[in-house]
């Protein structure tokens, strides 16, 4: 029984979500291999080989894999799938894009967003925005899984020395092409891996105010910035900052929610944070029901005051 982790990377480096996925794969009970499929991704493959607990890295390299197109990446995974009992993807935009395509091609179920491995065929996963936890048993021989990274500790990024086996990349499907990317540039920690996250909601009122109020707090705490869906919908923050059921799932040491009411779908994305602080002027706001420390105050005075006091 061997599990294959499909690494999340940008060719130059591995994304932290890969490390949590390795931990989940190890919990499935067998050896853990990692697939790094990319273009000029040697550095990422070498990083994968250093992860503690990884027995082998498969490095598939070629132009067809440069931009993570689902059609090509699926074909690459399928070319290797025969050797594995478990195929695990991090539950990232890329993992969620590809895993179901792989599962359907294999005619097996896909198990989404697991937070716990009970046994090699039984897993726990949140449903209904995390308001219930389902324990599911897979009856198919092969398990295709996406891993909610907040459910598993990160494997040690160093200490391993796995062999790297290189493979030719699959041919391009010819059905899809990469056009371009608008990457939000930021020197802050990555939202899903940050120890502290400060999130702003609709109460901020404009993109300018969002920047003006949230940035100093994030700078002071060395935090990542998040946003509620309402704030993203209103255009106060870009889509990649959205925390919630259908955005990013975060579980930092400290989560500060400013001007966020606490809709079910938002709570789904942050309620596993270790410590939650809510600042909201509506004392009835649902966010206070999950907050360890609630401050009923106008965020436009409380947040700058907080920045000063830190």
């Amino acid at each position, binding site marked *: 029984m061997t599990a294959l982790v499909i690494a999340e990377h940008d060719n130059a480096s591995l994304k932290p979500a890969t490390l949590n996925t390795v931990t989940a794969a190890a919990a499935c009970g067998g050896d853990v291999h990692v697939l790094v499929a990319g273009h000029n991704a040697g550095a990422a493959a070498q990083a994968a080989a250093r992860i503690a607990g990884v027995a082998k890295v498969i490095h598939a390299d070629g132009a067809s894999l440069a931009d993570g197109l689902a059609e090509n990446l699926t074909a690459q995974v399928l070319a290797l799938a025969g050797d594995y009992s478990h195929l695990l993807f991090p539950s990232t935009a890329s993992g969620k894009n590809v895993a179901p395509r792989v599962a359907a091609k294999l005619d097996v*179920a896909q198990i989404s967003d697991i937070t716990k491995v009970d046994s090699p065929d039984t897993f726990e996963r949140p449903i209904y925005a995390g308001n219930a936890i389902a324990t599911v048993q897979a009856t198919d021989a092969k398990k295709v899984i996406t891993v909610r990274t907040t459910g598993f500790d990160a494997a040690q990024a160093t200490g391993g020395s796995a062999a790297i086996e290189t493979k030719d990349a699959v041919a391009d499907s010819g059905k899809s092409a990469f056009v371009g990317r608008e990457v939000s540039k930021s020197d802050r920690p990555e939202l899903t891996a940050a120890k502290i996250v400060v999130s702003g909601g609709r109460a901020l009122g404009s993109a300018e105010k969002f920047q003006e109020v949230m940035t100093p707090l994030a700078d002071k705490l060395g935090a990542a910035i998040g946003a509620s869906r309402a704030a993203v919908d209103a255009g106060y923050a870009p889509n990649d900052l959205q925390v919630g059921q259908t955005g990013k799932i975060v579980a930092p040491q400290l989560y500060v929610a400013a001007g966020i009411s606490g809709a079910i779908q938002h709570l789904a994305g942050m309620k596993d944070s270790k410590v939650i602080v809510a600042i909201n002027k509506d004392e009835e706001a649902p966010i206070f029901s999950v907050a360890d420390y609630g401050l009923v105050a106008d965020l436009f005075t409380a947040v700058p005051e907080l920045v000063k006091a830190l």
Partner: protein
Amino acid sequence: MKILVPVKRVVDKDIKVRVKGDGSGVEVANVKMSMNPFDEIAVEEAVRLKEKGVATEVIAVSCGDAKCQETLRTAMAIGADRGILVESAEELQPLAVAKLLKALVDKEQPGLTILGKQAIDNDDNQVGQMLAALTDLPQGTFAGKIEVAGDKVNVTREVDSGLETVSLSLPAVITADLRLNEPRYVTLPNIMKAKKKQLDTFKPEDLGVDVAPRLKTLKVSEPPKRGAGIKVPDVATLVDKLKNEAKVI
């Protein structure tokens, strides 16, 4: 070009579900049901493509029990031209739904199939990708923008690092994210009109699809509860608590 839009009937987004005492599932009896919000966005997009003259017909399809007819009528009130119900009283898991949809794609030959990216009940986020796999079509998931040009469609996708655009050959499968559009309010005249639109019903066996579940749900339980927090009177107290009690800063 036809557009196929699968829609799912789910517990309304504003309802906080309760886990059943016996751990067999969540309580859905007498709970308000609605169209999955992402599917509503998918229907809206398809109807807009028709209004722009890109599409000629919008077909809504739903897989589930007889009550899914209501969801189909809602889709037709938004502007879908006709509906197809694949009726089954059994639990339909994503792979089974994708197979049913594949049978309908084979039959109807749509240029685009637009689905919601995920249903807010099981939060699987699978069916669109699975349908693309089974039909061997290219996929554009988590779409924030769709532009059809000739025999291609450009899809701008909401990804973890920002936005990414892919160009897909038609036919293709697209899944809708939140910011694709804002669905219109359905008007009473359109609800009335929708009642007269064509709605065909099939059974899974009519489509030759085996819908046997592949995952067994052993139990459904409450998530761990957070301990009750406290309200702090001012910022100074908050900072003190974070430093000395929670020790997170």
